[in-house]
């Protein structure tokens, strides 16, 4: 859940709670005030009626509001009560508040009842409650809007920096300089992120440096081993069994040095060390490579089909363009069937290279991974397609593998 939403939901829930409690409280207070008011009014009327009877000897009666009857009971008292009286004109029952007092005036005892309809005070109560309630709702709404606005502007630097952190890549080799804000906590976070990325980058660099140096340092001993083995092979002093062993050592050393070279190449592509870019005609590279490969293609009895009427120009290092095409074509030769087909096609900035095959690879999602081999017993180094992928990645080329109609397809959006 987004932070702002969370804050807003909390805020609204809290407001709702306050609204309910306040509503109940206001209800009671209002009810009490209005009842008091009504009782006071009744008391006033009763006083006037009493005065009128006393001074003017006139007994006023307005039913049902004022009723005066003589009673025998001489005990003076006075009390409020609620009652319901039928309104004869409208044939409805109406609620009334009444004050009943027994008073002795000029020697006579009267029962004076003053009444007031509660309808009016109920309406008053309702309108006051409504006004308070509406004011409260508007207040909550305004606060909500203002709050969200403030939160948004306060958190804006956070979200901006979050975007920067998301886009952080080790390959850029520069620590994250986040935008400073006037909020202390955010600045502290920025500083922590800066030193964190700085540390990560320096660790990454040293690991990379180490593996690159290791690969370079391995080259010389490998040369020595291979040279000594070659002279051993040529020394004539070995019997067949020994020679067989030397042969196996030799081919392993050869594999090791190929592996090392490929890993170095991958590292160099990753480090973007191929800076001598030129505009390269992909069609030309393919045509040159096909001449180089023609013997291998005919050796496997492969049928080559090309459709190179269009051309793609690309700004890339000539060496990398060569390796890219080389690895794709040699892959299509190596993993072809006997008497299979190779098809190379350029169409609308798309290069497609396909070769015959029996079935989709068991782990086709990993086809571009380092050391991926469809056939584990193969002595192939398993880096050819990883190198292809790395070149594509560093040059914004989209490459996809698919298997259709008994063919392995490699599609490159150049």
């Amino acid at each position: 859940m987004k932070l702002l939403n969370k804050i807003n939901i909390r805020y609204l829930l809290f407001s709702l709670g306050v609204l309910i409690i306040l509503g109940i409280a206001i209800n009671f207070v209002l009810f009490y005030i209005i009842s008091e008011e009504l009782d006071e009014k009744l008391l006033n009327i009763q006083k006037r009626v009493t005065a009128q009877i006393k001074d003017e000897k006139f007994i006023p009666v307005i039913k049902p509001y004022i009723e005066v009857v003589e009673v025998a009971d001489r005990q003076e008292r006075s009390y409020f009560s609620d009652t319901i009286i039928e309104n004869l004109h409208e044939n409805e029952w109406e609620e009334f508040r009444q004050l009943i007092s027994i008073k002795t005036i000029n020697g006579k005892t009267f029962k004076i009842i003053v009444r007031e309809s509660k309808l009016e005070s109920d309406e008053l109560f309702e309108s006051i409650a409504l006004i308070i309630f509406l004011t409260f709702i508007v207040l909550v709404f305004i606060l909500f809007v203002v709050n969200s606005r403030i939160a948004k502007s306060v958190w804006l630097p956070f979200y901006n920096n979050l975007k920067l952190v998301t886009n952080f890549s080790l390959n850029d080799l520069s620590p994250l300089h986040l935008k400073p804000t006037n909020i202390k906590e955010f600045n502290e976070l920025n500083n922590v992120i800066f030193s964190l990325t700085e540390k990560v980058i320096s660790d990454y660099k040293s690991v990379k440096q180490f593996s690159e140096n290791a690969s370079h340092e391995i080259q010389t001993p490998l040369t020595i081993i291979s040279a000594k083995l070659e002279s051993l092979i040529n020394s004539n002093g070995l019997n067949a069994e020994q020679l067989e062993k030397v042969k196996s050592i030799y081919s392993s050393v050869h594999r090791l040095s190929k592996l090392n070279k490929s890993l170095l190449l991958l590292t160099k592509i990753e480090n973007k060390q191929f800076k001598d870019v030129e505009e390269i005609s992909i069609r030309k590279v393919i045509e040159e490579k096909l001449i180089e490969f023609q013997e291998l293609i005919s050796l496997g009895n492969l049928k080559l089909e090309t459709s190179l009427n269009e051309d793609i120009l690309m700004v890339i290092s000539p060496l990398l363009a060569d390796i890219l095409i080389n690895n794709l074509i040699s892959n299509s030769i190596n993993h072809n069937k006997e008497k299979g087909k190779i098809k190379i096609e350029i169409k609308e900035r798309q290069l497609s290279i396909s070769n015959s095959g029996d079935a989709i690879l068991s782990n086709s999602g990993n086809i571009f991974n380092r050391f991926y081999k469809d056939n584990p017993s193969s002595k192939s180094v398993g880096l050819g397609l990883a190198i292809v992928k790395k070149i594509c990645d560093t040059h914004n080329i989209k490459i996809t593998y698919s298997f259709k109609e008994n063919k392995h397809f490699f599609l490159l959006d150049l």
Partner: protein
Amino acid sequence: MKILIIEDELDLLQEIKGFLEKEGFVCETAQDYLSADEKIWIYHYDIAIVDITLPGGSGLQLIEKLKQIHPDTGILIVSAKNSLDDKLTGLDIGADDYITKPFHLAELNSRIKSVLRRRKFEGAPEIVFNEIVIQPEDGSVKVNNTKLILTKKEYELLIFFIANKNRLLTKESIAEHLWGDNIDLADNFDFIYTHINNLRKKIFRCGGNDYIQNVYGMGYKFTDL
């Protein structure tokens, strides 16, 4: 022919020296920048094999000096770095060729001979092996005065064989010589066999001898009968 080998790894140095002496070259060695510098000033060599990373200085500086003092000395760079920048700089300042570690000694030998041909014979020596005569200038091959039509790979293969005659050339070194080291052909060396067979047949048809022997399935040897 006199060769100066500048290489800081003693083991490798001795191996190259031993190999080239068997090929009939006179070899001198230097293990660091200073001793190499000294030798360059005093003696004259036909070929210098220079490692770029040396204790005490850069091989590239040595090449620049060598070019000033003895411009006719052929220069072959040996480097652990397969860096195009280094390669281009090296070739720019006058080196004749560039070879990356790890390399096959046969490959080194073939490159040295090719540099020598270009330098010492102004690029027009004939390579003669009994009845086989090669003109590297135009790439023509004659056997018993009959012109031989070879594919590019067959031609390169023949030159490689003759440069390394009487030595066992492993399939790996042949493959790398013909296809470069970027190729990942796994354990499939059948194509070498095909090329060699074709080459054999073509020479045989012109009345030449079959000089190519298969050795224990390891590789091939081009030997005088």
